């Protein structure tokens, strides 16, 4: 939350320059952010709302929507828990291999998603290192739901931890130690001090993680095998429909995916707005 603005402007630029800069920012926002989004929705509704809805309720499309939501519903909580644990360990303790752990957390950011997907295929595929063993035990990972989940977990791994590490590092251990000297058990301390102190950062990390989990294309495309109605998530479905010149169906799906992302952002704004009093009182973010 921004602090209240000073009574007198501290900027010294002349009004025309200020107006020009503001206009430039607005124009950029329009061109880079709003226009593409508007085009997606306009194309989706070109043949009317009912056509768009019909394309979404078509069997394969509906299966892609369900699959995407399911992958996100499983991977986001897992990454939230693991990210929270990793951030806590990194921010509050010193241990051997800490630098390595930080680098590993960043790895999914630096590796191309396609490479990540390919690596999973090479590891778990039928000709892969673990493929023979997996086949012997009738476990199917590549071209199936577990593969999609693994790829999504890998890609979204850094989001929660990266949001939390700076906040937790800045806050230090003192409040947690205070809770312990006051007799709180480890779990009570975590619930009443650690978690409330980072819950905005955690929420933000989870939202970013969720947006990426639903939108991930590269890694998931490689490992899914693109089996229509079985392993196609929404982004893959969009690409397939677009390549088949089914533009209303493609853009309807794209509009829905964008709407899901906008919904999570709206949710975050709503939460921030509802807790504005506490936020300003405790001066976080």
């Amino acid at each position, binding site marked *: 939350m921004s602090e209240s603005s000073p009574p007198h402007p501290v900027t010294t630029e002349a009004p025309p320059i200020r107006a020009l800069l503001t206009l430039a920012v607005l124009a950029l926002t329009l061109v880079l952010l709003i226009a593409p989004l508007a085009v997606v929705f306009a194309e989706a509704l070109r043949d009317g709302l009912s056509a768009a809805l019909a394309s979404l309720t078509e069997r394969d499309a509906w299966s892609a929507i369900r699959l995407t939501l399911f992958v996100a519903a499983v991977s986001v909580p897992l990454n939230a828990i693991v990210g929270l644990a990793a951030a806590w360990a990194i921010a509050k303790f010193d241990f051997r291999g800490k630098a390595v752990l930080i680098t590993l957390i960043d790895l999914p950011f630096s590796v191309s998603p396609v490479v990540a997907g390919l690596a999973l295929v090479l590891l778990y595929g039928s000709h892969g290192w673990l493929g023979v063993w997996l086949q012997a035990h009738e476990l199917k990972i590549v071209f199936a739901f577990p593969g999609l989940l693994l790829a999504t977990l890998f890609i979204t791994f850094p989001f929660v931890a990266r949001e939390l590490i700076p906040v937790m590092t800045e806050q230090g251990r*003192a*409040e947690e*130690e*205070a*809770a*312990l*000297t*006051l*007799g*709180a*058990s480890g779990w*009570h301390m975590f619930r*009443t*001090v650690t978690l*409330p*102190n980072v819950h905005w950062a955690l929420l933000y990390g989870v939202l970013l993680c969720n947006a990426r989990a639903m939108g991930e294309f590269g890694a998931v495309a490689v490992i899914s095998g693109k089996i229509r109605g079985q392993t196609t998530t929404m982004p893959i479905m969009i690409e397939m429909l677009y390549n088949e010149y089914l533009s209303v169906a493609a853009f309807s799906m794209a509009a829905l995916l964008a709407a899901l992302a906008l919904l999570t952002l709206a949710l975050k704004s709503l939460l921030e707005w509802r807790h504005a009093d*506490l936020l300003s*009182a*405790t*001066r*976080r973010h």
Partner: protein
Amino acid sequence: MHIDIDEISKSFGTTPALHPVSLSIPSGAMVSLLGPSGSGKTTLLRILAGLEQPSAGRVLLDGRDATGTPVQQRRTGFVFQSYALFRHMTVFENIAYGLRARPRRARPRSAEITRRVERLLELIQLPQIAARYPSQLSGGQRQRVALARALATEPRMLLLDEPFGALDARVRRELRAGLREIHDATGLTTVFVTHDQEEAMTLADRVAVMSMGRIEQVGAPAEIRNRPATDFVRRFVAPSADIAPAVGRAILDSTTAPR
């Protein structure tokens, strides 16, 4: 509570923070650990609280070995250097924290908690700030809230880490008197860490002067001032007004004089 520190040593990795130190703190005393930064005084205080484990040696509380007792069961009231108030809780919730953290059967009823918190707010002479958040308090108010929070659980000893470090001179004098009053009223064994020799000398019954992880001398303030046991103690406790011009001149001479 009688505290015995028996040959405690501590090292972080290969860096020694405390060489074996021993110190006996009689019940109800107010003792200061005095020393420059890096002398090991805070480490020793944290070992007393159970926030650090010693590498060797024992902590005896009322004659009983408490070295392995977890921090939650030590029942120490600890005031942290930066106070470490819970920033997302009101002053009331901060002070009530220790009581609410107790297991259900040992937890006082809500009305009793309210009564106790109100009494503590009276004790620190801030009855009107219960609903505020720590960020809305002055430094001196925060320090007093931290003290009230530490006292709320009825601790067996009070440990304070540089309790007046971040305050201006006037507030510091006021709060020193306040701490002494609270100590005399509760009779709690109190140990505080400071680097300010004047603070240690005016407030404590006994002072332990520390340097480089060792206790150089333990004694009443007058004793330490009049009969310093080592050169370090003599230099460290010399009233700053008397020594400052001489030191200043010496520094000036050494930096400006041609060699």
